[in-house]
């Protein structure tokens, strides 16, 4: 802390506001300033101590302060001065301040290509004398509305009225709506990203060269091969397409392995290659989506976890110990869809994976408490390890023994299997699945009981306690007979995990008890209602009138996150990918090693975004390109206040313990 004292003098008012979101003004404030600035300028001038909140009437609730409630990760997030980076890209005419070195390894291609100039040295950001970084006026923004434009920058007041009018018109532009005609959108082909590479010409597909072209057009590849060069998995293309590339990759990797200096990654053109070696396996990610090395690495780790989840570590090790040349495709048979759905969720962009956190279904605290107590009462022996109710990938309730907690990376595998891969569907009975949860224990299998509530099922469970003998008359078979099936987003699953392979019938009776107690009372309809109303809408429910378009809020203590409804703006894959790319670059920038960044405000020509990291939460938010920093920070504060207020509805705190 002491060595930061000098910086803090520049950046933050003395004392309590160290953890609060701050304004930073630049002379060349970009095109995003609103005309409100002007009307408030006199107020600012007459009030020198802009940091003193007591001047502003009743203060809103304070965000948590660093150091007051240290999180488990406190070691990596010690309280520091607020380091601010302002990236203004891509036209390059503005100053870009980024931390040197820290992002050198991991700078996303996209950012690097877009940002025009970069001023070396973080000190320039905080050095008031630096010609580039101008006036760094800092003020806490936690003040009532109406006082938001707290900054006065001299040249702002010289804007002509016509300019102001234009500004006020364009403030409503949504993120990613501006189109640059001169630059080819690198995501233009994103719609085809998940299309399979066609078969060979003998199978009525395309010739080899065309197939290769299709294969190369994919923005993201994942490959897994054994250290002896045997292909194990490739997201795109069958082995005839991929084989030779696998050989090249194996040669490159083993060259560096031989030099005792393993290859971590390299860049070719706009494409980043990242390599992870896990025992006898090489994992390769090839991305043109601009993710950081750390992010790609964690994606590859997740694929490795999936393989361990199928095989367990001792099995994997012994397979290769006996025969290093083994073709792992056979022992992994049936795992490919899981790997692919995992890979595709990374390519689409998954907030859960990005934040390493879980999402919960929003429920009233009392409702969730009664669901959990019903769950605990239903527990009918059978050596239960974990019990969960999950609605479309969002946790509703968890019960667990006191000594074991759940690991997000394990749940990611489970949710991927149940809600993404399509391998297990509602309406297809109960499932009994041997699964290794590597973060819990990578040496052995657990057994997972899964049962979905049928979409139309409102009464007793259909399977074993089906008491009605009224079987319909034989229906003539027709291949197209539609069966109502819940889509994965609204299906409710009961997941019970046990270490015992023979406890199926015990867990089944737990499930039956649970279902009858949920359906007897109003609890199931509470869950259904919450699913139907979806995630809260940002503009109507969370923060009416906010300039923000989307946000991610992660509660670090609970390892859970929440976000608003993506509808309608980010519903389709392309805007969603752009949004997630932006989140990825924000996340990558604030989590870069040696980069103790607390607040990052980033302005691009199609969006503005803000990342705000404290020991208790992480907030990432996105707005249109013309939203001012003041409006942005105020919007961010509102979201944090909302999340604090709703904390016990948004997150499961503790869960049921038995």
């Amino acid at each position, binding site marked *: 802390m002491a060595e930061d004292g000098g910086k803090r003098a520049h950046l933050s008012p003395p004392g309590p506001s160290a953890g609060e979101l701050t304004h930073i003004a630049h002379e060349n404030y970009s095109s995003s300033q609103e005309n409100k600035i002007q009307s408030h300028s006199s107020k600012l001038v007459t009030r020198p101590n802009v940091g003193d909140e007591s001047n502003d009437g009743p203060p809103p609730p304070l965000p948590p302060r660093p150091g007051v409630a240290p999180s488990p990760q406190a070691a990596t997030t010690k309280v520091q001065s607020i380091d601010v980076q302002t990236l203004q890209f891509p036209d390059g005419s503005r100053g870009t301040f980024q931390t040197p070195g820290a992002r050198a390894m991991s700078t996303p291609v996209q950012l690097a290509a877009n940002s025009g100039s970069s001023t070396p040295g973080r000190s320039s950001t905080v050095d008031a004398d630096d010609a580039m970084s101008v006036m760094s006026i800092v003020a806490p923004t936690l003040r009532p509305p109406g006082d938001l434009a707290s900054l006065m920058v001299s040249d702002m007041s010289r804007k002509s009225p016509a300019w102001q009018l234009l500004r006020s018109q364009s403030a409503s532009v949504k993120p990613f709506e501006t189109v640059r005609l001169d630059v080819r959108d690198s995501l233009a082909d994103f719609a085809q990203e998940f299309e399979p590479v066609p078969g060979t010409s003998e199978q009525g597909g395309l010739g080899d060269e065309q197939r290769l072209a299709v294969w190369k057009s994919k923005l993201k590849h994942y490959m897994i091969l054994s250290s002896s060069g045997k292909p194990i998995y490739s997201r795109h293309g069958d082995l005839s397409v991929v084989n030779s590339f696998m050989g090249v990759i194996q040669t490159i990797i083993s060259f560096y392995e031989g030099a005792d200096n393993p290859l971590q990654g390299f860049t070719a053109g706009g494409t980043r290659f990242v390599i992870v070696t896990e025992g006898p396996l090489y994992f390769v990610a090839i991305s043109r989506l601009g993710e950081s090395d750390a992010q790609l690495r964690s994606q590859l780790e997740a694929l490795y976890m999936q393989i361990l989840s*199928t*095989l367990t570590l001792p099995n994997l090790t012994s397979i290769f110990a006996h025969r290093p040349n083994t073709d792992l495709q*056979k*022992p992994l*048979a*049936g795992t490919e*869809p*899981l790997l692919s759905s995992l890979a595709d969720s990374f390519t689409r962009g998954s907030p859960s994976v990005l934040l390493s956190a879980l999402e919960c279904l929003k429920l009233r605290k009392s409702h969730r408490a009664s669901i959990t107590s019903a769950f605990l009462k239903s527990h009918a022996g059978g050596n239960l390890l974990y019990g969960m109710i999950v609605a479309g990938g969002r946790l509703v309730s968890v019960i667990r023994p006191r000594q074991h907690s759940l690991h997000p990376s394990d749940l990611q595998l489970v949710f991927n*299997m149940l809600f993404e*891969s*399509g*391998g*297990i569907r509602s*309406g*297809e*009975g*109960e*499932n*009994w*699945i*041997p*699964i290794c949860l590597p973060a819990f224990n990578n040496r052995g299998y657990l*057994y*997972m009981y899964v049962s979905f509530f049928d979409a139309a099922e409102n009464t007793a469970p259909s*399977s*074993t306690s*089906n008491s*009605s*003998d*009224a*079987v*319909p*008359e*034989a*229906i003539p*078979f*027709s*291949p197209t*007979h*539609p*069966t109502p099936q819940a889509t994965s987003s609204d299906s409710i699953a009961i997941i019970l995990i046990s270490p015992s*392979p*023979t406890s*199926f*019938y015990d867990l*089944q009776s737990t499930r039956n008890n649970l279902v009858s107690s949920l359906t007897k009372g109003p609890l199931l309809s509470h869950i259904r209602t919450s699913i139907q109303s979806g995630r809260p809408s940002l503009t109507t429910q969370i923060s009416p009138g906010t300039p923000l378009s989307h946000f991610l809020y992660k509660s670090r203590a609970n390892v859970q996150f929440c976000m608003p409804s993506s509808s309608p703006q980010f519903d389709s894959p392309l805007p969603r990918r752009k949004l997630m790319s932006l989140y990825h670059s924000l996340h990558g920038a604030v989590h870069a090693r040696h980069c103790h960044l607390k607040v990052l405000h980033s302005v691009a020509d199609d969006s503005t975004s803000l990342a705000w990291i404290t020991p208790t939460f992480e907030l990432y938010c996105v707005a249109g390109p013309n939203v001012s920093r003041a409006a942005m920070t105020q919007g961010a504060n509102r979201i944090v206040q909302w999340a604090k207020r709703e904390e016990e509805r948004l997150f499961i705190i503790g869960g049921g313990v038995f």
Partner: protein
Amino acid sequence: MADGPKPSSSVKLVLLGEAAVGKSSLVLRFVNNDFQENKEPTIGAAFLTQKCNLPTRTIKFEIWDTAGQERFASLAPMYYRNAQAALVVYDLTKPTSLVKAKHWVAELQRQASPGIVIALVGNKLDLTSDGEGVRSGGDGSGDADVAEGEESGDARKVTTLEAQSYAQEESLLFFETSAKTGYNVTEVFTAIANAIPETSLKTTRGSNQAQGRTGDEQQRVNLNANSAGAKDGCAC
């Protein structure tokens, strides 16, 4: 004809067979009357139930649909232990799947309950030229045409004769089915229901307990019996 005071009993049935022969598709056709192209492989095992109404009684099948991949094979005993019936499935277009099916039959005869009723089922009849008739006609008689199918567009690689004679040797029920069109699917389950000896149906919740059924083998219904009760009211 549904709910009379007929005696009702549970029958534990297990499906075994190589990966991707259509075990889950057969079950889904039987239980939900549904079919999905390109179904993802089963992971572990799925447990489903379906009732089958016979003239004198109601059979409730408790079906264990197992995954076909090799790495799940070690779990199979858990599922066929105490099972009263087994459906061993192969793919008509894939000879190796019949080899695997024979292995399963041998394992069942060695290790499962002695009285277990085993049905050998060749699936994917829609891919064969026999299947053409099935698709257009609605009910072809699958067992009538034996053993050829060298016509163009016929993907059949396992002749009816070959499988049928094997089934006869081993005293198995035998059917060729198409889960895609639904052809012969109900008939398989109805035939199994009929083949389960009354004596083993004392309990209504019979799947868990071992039920002394030694000496039932003689009662096992004969072979190529796909006429057996095919038109019975298996209301599924």
